[in-house]
């Protein structure tokens, strides 16, 4: 068992940690460059250029897509749909969790949520296309049906962990149910809802790209990828695919860092 003092003593000094971090970053860049080089010179029999392109051409396609603003317009469109879906999904998930926390609500909603949660959401896309058409709202509805469960279960957990003594105290002071929800339940659920966003955001982004691939509308990263593939442009397709991977990773890092900062600021973070 390492004590706190030992833990502090064993940690590398900030300047050394900084130096190691910089060296690691440089080594990673070199590693990626080496992979790129291997890909560039790989024989056609191993990595056919008609399918995966070549890094030099991919870089030039990426530059073209950036220069004429296509890439960022598509990113904006995808992010906007994800944002709408997260907000709507959060509102529905939180609302359902609040209803399910009442005795009758929980009794009626319990089996419905169990079955609805088990539906593989990607399987709903053909039904949504028939119901809503080839529209951005079809994507949003699909993403909502996926992320609302992350918020529902997180909110339920927050309600279960609520200090009942505080609820009773508030009720004794004359607070209505709505006031209890507003001043106590929702406030104490913030870390849980942030956790749900941590899970929901990458999930929403992935499903939005899936929806755009299946239901290509006007804009969106999935639409751009689908267009490049349909035009038999492997370099364009790889450029967009790699861009999507980088964006997904950065989103994951960003929301993870924000969550860590928040939990640290409220004293829930790890030492």
């Amino acid at each position, binding site marked *: 068992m390492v004590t706190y003092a030992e833990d502090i003593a064993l940690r590398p000094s900030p300047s050394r940690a900084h130096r190691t971090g910089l060296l690691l970053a440089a080594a990673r860049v070199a590693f990626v460059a080496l992979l790129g080089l291997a890909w560039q010179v790989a024989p056609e029999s191993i990595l056919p250029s008609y399918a995966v392109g070549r890094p030099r051409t991919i870089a030039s396609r990426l530059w073209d897509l950036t220069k004429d603003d296509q890439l960022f317009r598509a990113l904006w469109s995808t992010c906007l749909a994800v944002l709408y879906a997260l907000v709507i999904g959060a509102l529905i998930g939180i609302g359902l969790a609040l209803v399910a926390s009442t005795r009758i609500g929980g*009794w009626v909603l319990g089996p419905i949520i169990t079955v609805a949660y088990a539906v*593989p959401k990607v399987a709903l896309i053909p039904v949504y296309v028939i119901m809503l058409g080839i529209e951005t709202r079809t994507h949003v509805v699909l993403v909502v049906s996926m992320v609302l*469960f992350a918020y529902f279960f*997180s909110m339920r957990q927050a309600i279960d962990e609520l200090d009942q003594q505080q609820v009773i105290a508030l009720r004794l002071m004359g607070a209505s149910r709505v006031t209890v929800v507003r001043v106590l339940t929702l406030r104490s659920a913030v870390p849980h809802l942030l956790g749900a966003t941590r*899970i929901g955001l*990458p999930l929403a982004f992935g499903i939005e790209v899936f929806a755009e691939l299946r239901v290509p509308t006007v804009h969106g990263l999935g639409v751009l*990828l689908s267009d490049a593939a349909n035009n038999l442009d492997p370099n364009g397709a790889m450029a967009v695919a790699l861009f999507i*991977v980088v964006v997904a990773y950065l989103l994951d890092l960003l929301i993870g860092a924000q969550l860590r900062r928040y939990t640290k600021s409220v004293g829930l973070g790890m030492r």
Partner: protein
Amino acid sequence: MRRALARIGGTLAQWVVAIAVVYGAWRLVVSPQLPPGFSASPEEVLTKLRSWFSDGTAWDMIGRTLGEALTGLAIGSCIGIAIALALGFSHPVVERFFEPFIGALYAMPKFVLVPVLFVWIGAGFTPRMVIIAVGTVPIVAIYTLSGIRTVDPDRVRMMRLFGARGWQVVGKLLVPHTAGHIATGLTLALPHAMFVAIGAEILFGGDDGIGGVLNTQAQLFDAPAVFGALTIATVLSVVLLAVLRLVSRRLLGVDLERARPAWG
């Protein structure tokens, strides 16, 4: 006895009310939204399901989707465990070096591979399985690594002092110690594999598997078939989740409820 009967009665009543609510919502809210000619009553869906089960179509669909999911899961798990063991055995700096790459693989929307694999390998079993394997690798690697991190280094040193070789340390200490973590990773990866399998079937546009049938029948506007395939997918997921929860609780002592929001 009376209490058990009351509990069963209560659960039954709960399900009857839930089915009535869903049926009412379907009739009043969903049905009017559907285009004319695309609506199916529960009786029509049941008839379709009965015919599918009697002529073996349903078993083919389930077998195909499960087959893809399980093969992809098996291959992805082997690669994930191998990566975790290699990183677990190396210097901590090497593990830190590869961390962002595993993170990127985990965060990557797996369906971006569909257009590339479609041109490269085609649209059959193999590309779908590749996507599932790619999705499984980071999940299993992360769980296995977290298990390896909990191994007591003194034990490893002691085995080394007694002359144990690397593979003996892996076989006699690391694998048994991390078995619980690996199993947890696998139980979390299986529903994910099912979800990716159905999604890949839809995107690759074949007519086999649950996703393939859903896609084809939706294009034909065959509503009973679409909702029949959706029912099969849902029941399969419910059964899979129930079995996984039971296995993980009984054999591993792990509560999968906590990881639930990550599935979909």
